[in-house]
């Protein structure tokens, strides 16, 4: 199935070079992949995944191994960041 992976701030470095400016890449992943499966397959350090959203909805650290992704969903990840 296809999902969209968005990586921001310092995590953008884990995207293919041509996708970095858009912070976004479409990925083909195995059906039933969890959020954590994608994090691992893309070699993103799990400890750097501070804000993890699927279609804009927060996925808590404890849920990442059990949150199954569905066709067309958008997984967006940030390292520890904040603003004001």
């Amino acid at each position: 199935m296809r999902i969209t992976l968005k990586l921001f701030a310092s995590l953008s470095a884990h995207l293919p070079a041509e996708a970095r400016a858009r912070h976004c890449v479409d990925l083909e992943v195995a059906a039933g992949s969890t959020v954590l499966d994608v994090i691992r397959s893309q070699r993103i350090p799990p400890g750097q995944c501070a804000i993890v959203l699927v279609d804009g909805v927060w996925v808590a650290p404890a849920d990442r191994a059990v949150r199954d992704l569905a066709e067309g969903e958008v997984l967006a990840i940030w390292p520890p960041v904040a603003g004001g």
Partner: protein
Amino acid sequence: MAWTKNVLRVNLEAGTCTTEPLNMAWAQDYLGQRGLATKYFVSEVDPQVDPLSPKNKLIFVTGPLTGTMAATGGRYSVITKGPLTGAIACSNSGGYFGAELKFAGWDMVIFEGASPKPVYLLIIDDQAELVWETEAALQKHHQDPQLRVAAIGRAGEQGVLYAAIVNDLHRAAGRSGVGAVMGSKNLKAVAVRGTRTDAYHLADPEAFFKASEAGKQVLAAHGVTGQGLPTYGTQVLMNVINELGALPTRNHRDVQFEGAMAIGGEAMHEKRPTDGKANLVTNGACFGCTIACGRISRMDPGHFSVKDKPQYHGASGGVEYEAAWALGAANGVSDLEALTYANFLCNEDGFDPISFGATVGAAMELYDLGLLTKEQVGFELPFGATEAMVKLAELTARGEGFGKEIGLGSRRLCAKYGRPDLSMTVKGQEFPAYDGRGLQGMGLAYATSNRGACHLRGYMVSPEVLGIPVKMEPQATEGKPAMLKAFQDLTAVVDSAGICLFTTFAWGLSDIQPQIQAACEGDWSEERLLLVGERIWNLERQFNLAAGLTGKDDNLPPRLMKEPAKTGPQKGAVSKLDLMLPEYYQVRGWTPQGVPTPETKARLGV
């Protein structure tokens, strides 16, 4: 003992500068900076005063940790009655000015009356006098590049109601129009040089060294304060909040902006196709800061806004998240260079980019509805019109043409053109960069903020987006009133101590308390500090009630209450303020009308 115990009182009408001892009994109850100056202010000023009349006062104030080696210990605040809101105004700034004021030996400067002609205040240690000139001229005249200057620009002189006081060129006491009050007093600047080594004494220097050092280690080790903020600044939030569906766009018509990626923190790092250089040059820090979130930017010299203006081709203060949102998403403008130029003007001419940008957004909606015409504005003003936004920044700074109307803020603008409901404000002050429909706790924070819509009085984005200290669902209402009260009280403590609120992404009260305890005489337990924070909040509230505001002013515009978010994960959401506000009043110990009960006042001693 970390106070200098000296107050400078400046009577602008008589032209006199006099010294008086700091009221140490009040310092024990209100700590310093925001709290202590508010106590002075409410004790001396009639709450009904016209904010722009000579009877209003203006207080510059430091905290006990300002000018110490505490991380971020460089803050000062300006307290007055705000002309935009008619409420208490308290605006906080970094840079180096605050520490310098402390080194000169002053906790606080109180300005009274109005000068018959433009003046500036010059402070060299314990000598203070009123004279006239501006920042570069001042440093040259006094042959001292370390002379620190807080000044108003043309906006403050022209009566822009959200004029700021800018120090160190691009740090600002930015919100609520404190610069307009300064302008109304014919006070152009405060210039200070402090060289005293005996200005203040720490109660326990060894304990303070250990506590402040421990605090710095916590900041350095934390992902947000050690890496995220220095690298990307606050601007990194642009894409986060957009993905979350809480980025107010086109005067809050929308909650997601298609141009967000082009104006966010990541974009500032990317090389421009035009000249191959990035907008961001480096990051910058205020006095004593080990975070260094500040953005220093250099524009594309070929950009239309500056191609004939070499004075803007050098590096200067770049856009932070709030400014980029207000100058960009709030208007539908996605040209990062144009936002940077408008931000340079805000710094140079001294006006708040949040209120300015949000007011332009309101004007664009009025134009879109046909309530404002090209003839009235002087040019076309559709959403997304980059050149129009830039032109309005120039006109507002100069007080010319339609800029005069933009300079009065969106409440007055929308009322004049028959649609007061389109003003995205609380108590007359424009919203910052989070939609109160998408983040329910932020909506409550806006509605109840003592200085009008503000993100810096109770930053519910921390729990609702970032999971700091715990994660709360954006649409949930349960537990939010109590969490907001805790944030508001803690923020009042931080704002009164002399340190930066951004430390609290990593620090809890247990990191701050040992620093205050070691610096200040007396017992400063966590419980006492939170009581100080609650006392400050209630004192500000009392002032606002006496000024004529009521619980009915704790509200949000009808758009946020009735028009559902159109897209994204918060689609369909409206603010549930009516569910949260009664509970908020209850946890505050206020009546159902939002008035502190006699028991609450007695408990807090206000």
